């Protein structure tokens, strides 16, 4: 175990440079190292990079204003979310790690009123923000669902995360008008890979489409979009082959 004084000395040294210094942790173990980031990088970029590394830093999620708190997920406008997504997509193309956007709709069977839905969402925030380590949880302003940005996450990992969220919702006591209920957690996921040429608004629209598809499929459905749904589109067709070989046939003739 590296002594704490070692990190303190390094932090002291880092103060002489135009960088912000963060201690990286891995669960309950001691510090793994220091992350030095140039001062012009935003808090969200740092958190996204740390999350992509699968690590955490003490205090993560507390400094940025848009991250969920136990009391209430911050209301976030579409433009704010697009701005954060743009940062993420830029990171995807720099690091070549994918990023998933998950839209979560919490509801109840039979369809709640708008007020009931707001109550359900408010009740979902504490267990979600406790359990969803290293991710951002936003409630979209004017929309009745949450948005979660999952850096470094491909479609498989995003679906696993979606199932974890469903379990959290299923194991939490929700109540409306002092009556216990079991809400539904329906999700739409869109994933951007380094090879995708998606804008932030396209990714958000795709996730919204998937959520819409999931809501139509029934409560607790999870639908996703990623390149693997386009897999067959690259198959070399019979027509393409015929054209490729046409000059060989001329030679033979």
């Amino acid at each position, binding site marked *: 175990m590296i002594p704490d004084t070692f990190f303190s000395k390094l932090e002291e040294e880092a103060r002489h440079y135009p960088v912000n210094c963060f201690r990286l942790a891995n669960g309950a173990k001691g510090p793994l190292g220091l992350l030095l980031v140039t001062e012009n990088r935003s808090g969200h970029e740092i958190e996204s990079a740390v999350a992509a590394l*699968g690590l955490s830093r003490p205090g993560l999620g507390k400094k940025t204003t848009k991250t969920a708190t136990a009391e209430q997920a911050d209301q976030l406008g579409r433009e704010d979310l697009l701005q954060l997504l743009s940062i993420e997509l830029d990171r995807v193309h720099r*690091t*070549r*790690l*994918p990023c998933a956007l998950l839209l979560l709709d919490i509801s109840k069977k039979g369809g709640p009123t708008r007020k009931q839905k707001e109550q359900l969402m408010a009740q979902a925030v504490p267990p979600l923000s406790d359990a969803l380590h290293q991710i951002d949880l936003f409630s979209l302003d004017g929309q009745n669902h949450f948005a979660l940005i999952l850096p*470094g996450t*491909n479609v498989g990992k995003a679906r696993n995360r979606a199932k974890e969220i469903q379990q959290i919702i299923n194991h939490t006591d929700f109540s409306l008008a002092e009556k216990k209920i079991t809400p539904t957690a329906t999700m739409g996921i869109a994933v951007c890979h*380094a*090879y*995708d*040429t998606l804008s932030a608004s396209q990714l958000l629209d795709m996730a919204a489409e998937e959520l819409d598809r999931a809501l139509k499929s029934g409560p607790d459905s999870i639908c996703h979009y990623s*390149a693997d749904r*386009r897999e067959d*589109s*690259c198959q*070399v*067709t019979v*027509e*393409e*082959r015929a*054209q*490729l*070989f*046409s*000059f*060989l046939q001329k*030679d033979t003739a």
Partner: protein
Amino acid sequence: MIATSYHNPKIICISSGKGGVGKTSFTVNLATALSDKGKQVLLIDGDLGLANVDVVLGLNVRHTIRETIEEGRDLLASLVEINPGFMVLPASSGVPEMANLSLEEQAFLTSSLEEIIDRFDYVLIDTAAGIGDSVMWFNTWAHENIVIITPDPTSLTDAYALMKVLHSRHGRNHFHLMINSVKSKKEGQEVFANMSLVLERFLKITPRQIGAMHQDSSVSNAIRQQKPFFLAAPESRASKEIDAVADRILAF
């Protein structure tokens, strides 16, 4: 010795879809020709699990990209100097794990490569055959994509499939075609014209021809000698053709 001045390197990826079409021989000789023209060249063996750039150059390699991925070793320490303007970054052979790098490992390798490439004018990547993740990743990292084809139907199909995937899934639209092992100039022109027709008709992309190489015994002789034919047989037709390709690359 590694040049310490900083350049803005042009990254060129060489792929083919099918194996055995002369990709490694072409890349090694192109790197030799570019360095002969006074350029600083880095050749990366992008066939991470079944490397053979070192074989073609007759190198005894101690350290490879593998040590960087697995042990965090500095990539600079793995570079092998062929001549003052030509360095090789070798890869491992017979290591299946290296052929299937995780996303995190790919990202780590990208950042490690980006730390060293600004010492060079040109970075050439000799990729593996096929359309695996590493092939796609190197091709999307590069500024320019060269695809090697021969007049064989299997090569044509595989090269087309590679370009189709790169275009459809990775948004790549500019390909330079190198026609290898042609029997005549006419055959080379026909192969290029036909491939262009298919690419334009089905994918709406227009490729450019970067060169053609005739079947030449000096190529196979040089491979057996483990030397670039550009050096072993400088007056051969193959050497003159590769020299012409190098001139076109300088004009990129």
